[in-house]
């Protein structure tokens, strides 16, 4: 049993006009086996939260804490966080020209597991994981994310989830840019991983449609850099019909 605990987290980004605070007191804990959905309007800071958990250097944490089973995540480098069991499926995965998917995956798995997987079993494992996500084996020889469509990038992120087997998965808009079929394939991939690993999941999304495939235990409404309301799966239904307006108004400073 593991726990990811975020407490009163404040973070800002440096802009030409000075520091801009984006996270304004986020408090949230996720336990193994549980799935939390974080839903909020554009620009509310959802990706910022995901990046800060992963350790992106462009954000400064000004106060608050993140711990993984009591260990201080904020004190870890980006790669240490991944090796400690955190995984971020990015909203906009980065292209890395000239680095093949197979080389990238094997290097990552080697880094996270601490030893290189045996070549023969590894190739089989990679092929199976790709087949599960209905990815053409030819992707293994292509450069990481280069020229991938939006949907292919998202499948590639979930492929990494399946191979790296983290304790906690943060999925940032994994549903965006997917057509209905691709959404189902990707959601099934996430569900397969959740069920087989018992990992905790933080599912960041703008729309409710992915929640038809992946049922959250808790739904958080995220507005203007903080969680303004939390509830069960039914809270997503409310958002589906009413939108974010009520929460946006409520979040406005008096």
């Amino acid at each position: 049993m593991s726990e990811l605990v975020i407490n009163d987290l404040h973070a800002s980004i440096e802009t030409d006009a000075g520091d801009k605070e984006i996270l304004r007191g986020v408090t949230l804990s996720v336990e193994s086996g549980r799935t939390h959905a974080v839903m909020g309007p554009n620009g509310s800071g959802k990706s910022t939260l995901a990046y800060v958990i992963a350790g992106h250097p462009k954000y400064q944490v000004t106060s608050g804490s993140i711990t993984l089973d009591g260990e201080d995540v904020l004190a870890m480098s980006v790669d240490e966080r991944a090796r400690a069991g955190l995984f971020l499926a990015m909203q906009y995965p980065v292209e890395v020209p000239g680095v093949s998917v197979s080389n990238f995956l094997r290097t990552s798995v080697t880094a996270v597991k601490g030893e290189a997987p045996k070549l023969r079993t590894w190739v089989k494992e990679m092929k199976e994981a790709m087949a599960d996500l209905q990815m053409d084996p030819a992707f293994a020889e292509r450069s990481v994310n280069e020229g991938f469509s939006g949907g292919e990038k998202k499948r590639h992120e979930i492929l990494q989830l399946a191979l790296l087997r983290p304790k906690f998965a943060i999925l940032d808009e994994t549903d965006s840019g997917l057509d209905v079929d691709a959404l189902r394939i990707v959601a099934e991939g996430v569900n397969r991983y959740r069920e087989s690993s018992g990992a905790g999941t933080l599912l960041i999304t703008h729309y409710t449609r992915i929640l038809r495939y992946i049922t959250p235990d808790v739904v958080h409404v995220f507005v203007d850099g903080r969680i303004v309301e939390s509830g069960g799966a039914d809270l997503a239904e409310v958002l589906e019909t009413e939108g974010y307006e009520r929460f946006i108004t409520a979040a406005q400073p008096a």
Partner: protein
Amino acid sequence: MTIAPPHDLAPRVASFDPDSFGVPTGRELEWRFAPLDVLKPFFSLDPEAGTVTGISTSEFVANVPIESVASTWTPTDLTGALARSGARSAVVIDIPREARVDEPVVVRLEASSSFAYQHVEITAGAFSSARIVIEANTVADISGAIVINVADGAELTLLMVVDGPKEHRLVAHLPATVGRDARFTACTVTLGGRAVRLLPSVHYRSSGGSAELLGVFLAEGEQFFEQRIFVEHEQPHCTSNVIYKGALSGALAHTVWIGDVLVRREAIGTQTYEMNRNLLLSDGPRADSVPNLELETGDVVSAGHASATGRFDDEQLFYLQSRGIPAELARQLVVRGFFADVLGRLGMPAWRDTMMQRISARLGMADEESDDA
């Protein structure tokens, strides 16, 4: 001696007589980036200089007295003219007419003393097809030329590897003549040496020729690498593609890339593209990159150039690190990836992998397996 009109990209003077060229002062366009103090021994004739021989198991390689070589090339600067008058022997690589040589012809150049003049003369006979690898180890100071003739309908790929210690100097002209419908691909990989100045050039003898000039270089410490490319399209319907990529680290590293492409009035239907990208791996190194494209005719299929020098992409590093890959390894992966497409164009997978391993070794990266394992 011939003298070209003043403001065009072509070399102004071509002559075997060293006295036709002044000693560089640093004010000349073609010398303004080079460390003249480091290259000083290359500016006067050294009667004691040694010779360079080609070591190879190939039947197509021979070492002969320089007098027996009828070279098509006339030197275009002082170092070229001095090396030509100082060289006593030549390495001749002769691919016979219509020969199909499957295995790459590998030649290691070896100097007989710490300073040597070199002359290599490569001929790919009509309709032949071959690949040649020249290993130029930087274990002596060497000045000279590698002259390349690609006859009509021939296909030649030349890989030149400059690797070794970081103390020595190399100046090499690489003039190529490309025949009718011939295809020439050259790639220089520059890793070793204190100062390396390479001057590849391409001339077309007839229409339909194509030339691809590729280069990768990795400059560290106080290494100086200069690559001065000159492609002259004087025939119709020829193609040139020039792609150089460099990585630099350390405050004193300095690279220069000059891409001069001249499309003459008669060269209608030309397709030309040139590109140089440099990746700065640390603060401080200097990468000069100057593409010059001069069109005397507008009747071309395409003509383009690009040049960019940038720092490491932090988003790429973040992405790799967020998958558990330590920062140093992530940087090495990105650098290897940066070079991969250029080396991939060679069409020599085994040598591409060998070059990747040498680059990795330079970057301090253990490399048990190739990229496509």
